[in-house]
């Protein structure tokens, strides 16, 4: 009651008293995060952007900055070929691994989505790696050779790949195949996301499709896939980010090593330059997946719109034909009239 009374006394144009108080409470709730973002994200981001143009030496009196310009980048690209090489291998690996992870997760989710007796048990198995995957555990398992599928001849695959693809790509793919189980292990969360999404697809849609004579194969492509498309995007992005921060990834180890390297040219600035390039690559890969999979509009909306567009086009076409017909008729009439009624001087107009 009090609120309304005050509002009448002092009318505001922009925000009502209630709204502005609500907004203030909103800021209060997100305030810790805002401070955190400023302190642990935006300011460090600016700092590392600043660092990457400098050579930084650590002295007892603090950090000593020497301006290099693009020196760090030329150093990385020209004199230390390992980083660019790893970067290219990383790009190849991510672009291949993410679809493998997503397709595998979707496959398992679809199989588990049917009437399965021991669904809980299988879910338990396929989610298990999520709690195990950590850098050291994975590294140890890989180094013991426990990570390749027992019956798969990886060597043959790699040598076959090398004849078709560039070396860096073949190397990456070979690594993926020899660590196939590890790649599949990253799909635990994705399986659950897909499973949860699949169970929320409206069953009446399948019923309607079946009545119209659609096979299961068609149902999958026309109903299931478009409905869970946002989840595919979500899983792809999750996989990209997970792979990027994963300790199996040698790039992040290289950045850390460069950070604490005692040599003259390496150090914080050098590592910052590396990190920025790495971040740029990851952002580009994420964007690529967004472009490929992300569309704001619903699939069915799009179909309807397409149909409407088609209808409009036909309508326009019909109108044009009609207009043309009318014009032609008028012209004909004019010509006919011309033939009938000639003016006295013969010029045709009055």
């Amino acid at each position, binding site marked *: 009651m009090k609120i309304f009374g005050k509002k009448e006394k002092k009318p505001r144009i922009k925000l009502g008293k209630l709204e502005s108080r609500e*907004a203030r409470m909103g800021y209060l*709730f997100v305030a810790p995060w805002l401070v955190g973002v400023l302190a642990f*994200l935006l300011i*460090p*981001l600016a700092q*590392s952007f600043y660092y990457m143009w400098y050579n930084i030496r650590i002295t007892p009196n603090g950090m000593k900055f020497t301006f290099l310009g693009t020196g760090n980048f030329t150093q990385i690209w020209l004199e230390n070929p390992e980083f660019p090489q790893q970067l290219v291998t990383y790009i190849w690996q991510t672009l291949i691994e993410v679809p493998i992870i997503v397709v595998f997760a979707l496959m398992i989710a679809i199989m588990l989505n049917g009437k399965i007796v021991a669904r809980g048990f299988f879910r338990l198995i396929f989610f298990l790696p999520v*709690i195990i995957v950590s*850098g050291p555990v994975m590294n140890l398992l890989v180094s013991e050779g426990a990570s390749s599928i027992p019956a798969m001849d990886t060597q043959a695959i790699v040598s076959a790949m090398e004849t078709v693809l560039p070396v860096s790509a073949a190397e990456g793919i070979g690594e993926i195949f020899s660590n196939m189980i590890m790649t599949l292990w990253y799909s635990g969360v994705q399986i659950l996301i897909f499973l949860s999404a699949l169970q929320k697809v409206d069953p009446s849609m399948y019923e309607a499709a079946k009545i119209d004579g659609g096979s299961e194969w068609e149902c999958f492509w026309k109903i299931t896939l478009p409905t869970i498309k946002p989840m595919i995007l979500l899983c792809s992005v999750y996989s990209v980010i997970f792979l990027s921060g994963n*300790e199996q990834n040698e790039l*992040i180890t290289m950045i850390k090593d460069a950070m604490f390297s005692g040599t003259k040219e390496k150090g914080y600035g050098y590592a910052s330059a590396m990190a920025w390039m790495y971040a740029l690559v990851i952002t580009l890969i994420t964007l690529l997946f967004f472009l490929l999979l992300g569309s704001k509009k619903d699939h069915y909306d799009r179909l309807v719109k397409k149909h409407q567009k088609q209808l409009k086009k036909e309508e326009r076409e019909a109108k044009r034909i009609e207009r043309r017909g009318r014009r032609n008729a008028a012209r004909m009439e004019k010509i006919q009239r011309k033939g009938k009624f000639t003016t006295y001087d013969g010029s045709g107009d009055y």
Partner: protein
Amino acid sequence: MTAQAITKKDLRSYFTKEKLHRFMFGTREKQGAGKMIAIYGLLICIGFVYLYPIFYMISTSFMDQNDLLDTSVKWIPSHFYLRNYVDAGASLDFVASFFKGILIAGIPTACNILVDMMVGYGFARYEFKGKKIMMAILIFSYILPKQVTMIPTYVLYNNMGILGTIWTFALPALFGNGLNAPIFILIFYQFFRQVPKVLMEAAAIDGAGHFKRFFRIAVPSAVPAIVTVVLFSFVWYWNESYLTELYVQGLSGNSIWTNLVVQLKNFDSSFASKATVGSTATSLNESVRMAATSLSIIPLLIMYLILQKQFVESIDRAGITGE
């Protein structure tokens, strides 16, 4: 001759194409046997391949030197051999690392929950200027690799003098920037948006303030989301070795903090140093390494088996997939 012809004919009329098809692929009401066999076969095969590294690890960890060299011993060790576990446990400093690991994972998780829940609630319930930009920054902060901000943050912690303490994990978590915090904030955001608005309005009419509404209505209704976030946050902090080494250990080597995965990472060197002290220790072989790996994942494995239902239903109930 005639009898045979009759039986063949009978068979042909009995096993029609439609019947076979129905048997294999099923009808609308019943799933076909062929399809079921295919699905179960695939699931069991993939499941075995999936768990192969774990089977390998467990089987190898019980083998002694002779079993490793003997090619006839493949899966089942010739006798029950626990020495690997004793040695590995000693090198990992298992008990101390275990409890420290619980603290390293538990304290930031607690901070994460509290703050992320508040932030998620703020984003979900209130309209204010700049909300869209903030959400964009939130997502951006998730995509951005940690390596970019890692170096200045390291310098910051160093200047604050908290390098090598648990604060390096707890402090960002207290300010909503812990490990994978954007995911948790988004989970809470999604969850609180689904809590009916009428409920909040009813409480407001009954005179509940903003904080009372949050603590009395929003928090109790968010239990499924809280469970999800607790589990994931704990597991992710537990398994983090890169940042733990960098921040909580501070790379100085004299920090008291450590957890099992970091110990596992430095296992080879610590085993070597232990082996020179104790004369009876066996030489470092893959059995010991696998025993150490098993030891480092056993705590989470037990937790997983106890809380399996919460784990596998976590994503379903946190409402990530909508509705």
